[in-house]
């Protein structure tokens, strides 16, 4: 309803602005894509609209849908959890920059364990999702969790049933740390899962994990936090077990070499650095370098610059993590240089 309301409201606002002969005309910016970024983007959009009168109409149809829509030029910007390769961007005449950071966390439902207590490593997660580690008291899990009494029950694996940027980041990480995963399953927004049940969306996975005893799943960090799900620590490239939180996501972002990545084509999984959380994810914005509607495009860019500079408090309140200032500077330089 909210989304539909904004159209007439926007038209009224536009008419009022024109009629009043004010110097400023409200713009209607449209975007589509990633569901992960939707909560923060709609919060930013509401605040920004109060301040400037510009409306951002964002449809959270999924990352793949966002890429398809921007390629069809039906929206002013697309948002995706999966970056496009520079060649693909060049072919479509698109530019791409990161907007905000999040993470994918393993969530579990196991009686006798506390939230945040269980420790996982990349290879163990890969083996669980490959169906090789089938019991909670598997020696590999016991070794990672000294002092935790793990039951001899079957691990019920839960994954996404729909294509998803969350899945992309999760399996991208598994492909980095497990040769078997890379060879047998690979990476993508949807993969052929060797085992487990599929839930639709973060909410589907969390509903399954909450309901199926002895289960494990993976969801967005903000989603796990808001739904009070038990999530575990993951061993990073430096060998330390890291609790997913804003600090460990930012550590991963700070260690990523954004300057060297053309069009910010970089996935932050398995980042270096002692404090980096290994399944840190990014949302990317895609826009035309030479947009059909330069006025809309300029308004959209103004909104993103505002969000990158002033949107931190809102991001933090919704458990998203803003980029460190050095990366924000790089993004602003890129925008100025690439998008006309």
């Amino acid at each position, binding site marked *: 309803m909210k989304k539909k309301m904004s159209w007439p409201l926007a038209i009224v606002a536009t008419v009022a602005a024109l009629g009043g002969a004010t110097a400023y005309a409200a713009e209607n910016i449209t975007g589509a894509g990633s569901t992960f970024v939707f909560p923060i983007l709609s919060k930013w959009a509401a605040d920004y609209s109060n301040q400037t009168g510009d409306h951002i109409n964002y449809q959270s149809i*999924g990352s793949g*849908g966002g*890429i398809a829509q921007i390629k069809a030029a039906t929206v002013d910007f697309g948002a995706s959890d999966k970056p496009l390769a520079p060649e693909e961007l060049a072919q479509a005449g698109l530019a791409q920059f990161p907007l905000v950071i999040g993470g994918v966390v393993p969530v579990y439902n196991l009686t006798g364990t506390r939230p945040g207590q269980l420790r996982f490593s990349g290879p163990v997660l890969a083996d669980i999702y490959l169906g090789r580690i089938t019991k909670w008291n598997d020696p590999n899990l016991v070794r990672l969790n000294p002092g935790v009494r793990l039951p001899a029950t079957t691990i*019920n694996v839960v994954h996404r049933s729909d294509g998803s940027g969350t899945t992309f980041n999760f399996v991208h990480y598994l492909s980095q740390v497990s040769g078997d995963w890379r060879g047998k399953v*690979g990476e993508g*927004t949807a993969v*052929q899962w060797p085992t487990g*049940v599929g839930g639709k969306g973060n909410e589907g996975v969390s509903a399954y994990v909450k309901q199926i005893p002895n289960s494990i799943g993976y969801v967005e960090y903000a989603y796990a936090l808001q739904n009070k799900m038990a999530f575990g620590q993951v061993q990073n490239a430096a060998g330390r077990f890291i609790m997913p939180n804003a600090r460990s996501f930012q550590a991963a972002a700070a260690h990523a070499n954004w300057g060297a990545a053309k069009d910010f084509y970089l996935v932050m999984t398995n980042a270096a650095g002692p404090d980096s959380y290994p399944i840190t994810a990014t949302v990317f914005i895609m826009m035309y370098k030479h947009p059909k509607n330069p006025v809309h495009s300029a308004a959209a860019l103004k909104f993103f610059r505002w969000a990158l500079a002033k949107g931190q408090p809102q991001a933090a309140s919704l458990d998203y993590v803003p980029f460190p200032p050095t990366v924000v500077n790089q993004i602003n330089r890129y925008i100025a240089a690439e998008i006309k």
Partner: protein
Amino acid sequence: MSTGDRAFRWLTAVAAWAVLITLLAAALSMAWGGRLAFRTFGWKFITSPNWDAVGHNFGAAIPIYGTLVSSALAMLVAIPTSLGIAIFLSEVAPRWLRGPVGMAIELLAAIPSIIYGMWGLFVFAPFMANHVEPWLNDKLGPLPGIGPLFSGPPIGIGMLTAGIVLGIMTIPFISSVMRDVFQAVPPALRESAFALGATPWEVTRKVTLPYTSSAVLGAIFLGLGRALGETMAVTFVLGNAHDFSGSLLMPGNSIAAAIANEFTEADSPIYLSSLIALGFLLFVVTFIVLAIAKFMLMRIERSFG
């Protein structure tokens, strides 16, 4: 013929043809949309259990199997229950009860399928996981023959739960049509049977059911068609796993659920085409199932003379 008659003929003919043309157009456009998948995989698209979006290797065997098995389970639940409801309402129930119960059934038919899905996931699946499936595991799991159907971890989500939820969903459709046709049996027929000393059971078995057999089967087809194409309720409780499993307790996938889950994020032409081809196969599967049912109907009608 007067102008009015001609207009009437035309209007009704157009309405009837519009259905046929829409159906044909939908089938053709899906066959066209799925041509890339059919050309790439050929007959293997129907027989292959693969569904690999990374390796661009797709096959429809698991969704087809899931669609058929979940619908069959649904009919196993829905047909006896619906028959019972309809017979009770038309033969057994006191007159004052018929109105309210009949109304309640019609209201059940108006509940959106997503509500059934959420009820299935949040209420029914835990019940299955905690009470029904452990019992099935213990009692039926070790039996030879049917044992493998009831083995596997009792997670509450899978083919059996989906089939039962589907069955509950289709009960109102089947039972309300059955009740209507039972009540349409000419009173003279039933009353003469009663006058000869027949019990309500004998009247039902020997008069009502034979008289209405084709309409009863029609009601079952209506429910079956709904079960085959049902999407949201199934996707919540089926588990959406492209795995083949002989056990009814294990997750599976259905054609409609796969399309609903994956369509928005199908990011390559062959993936999209495979999903559209799945839609075409749902058409074909539904057509074959209904054709078989129609054939059975003809045989039954012949045997009743």
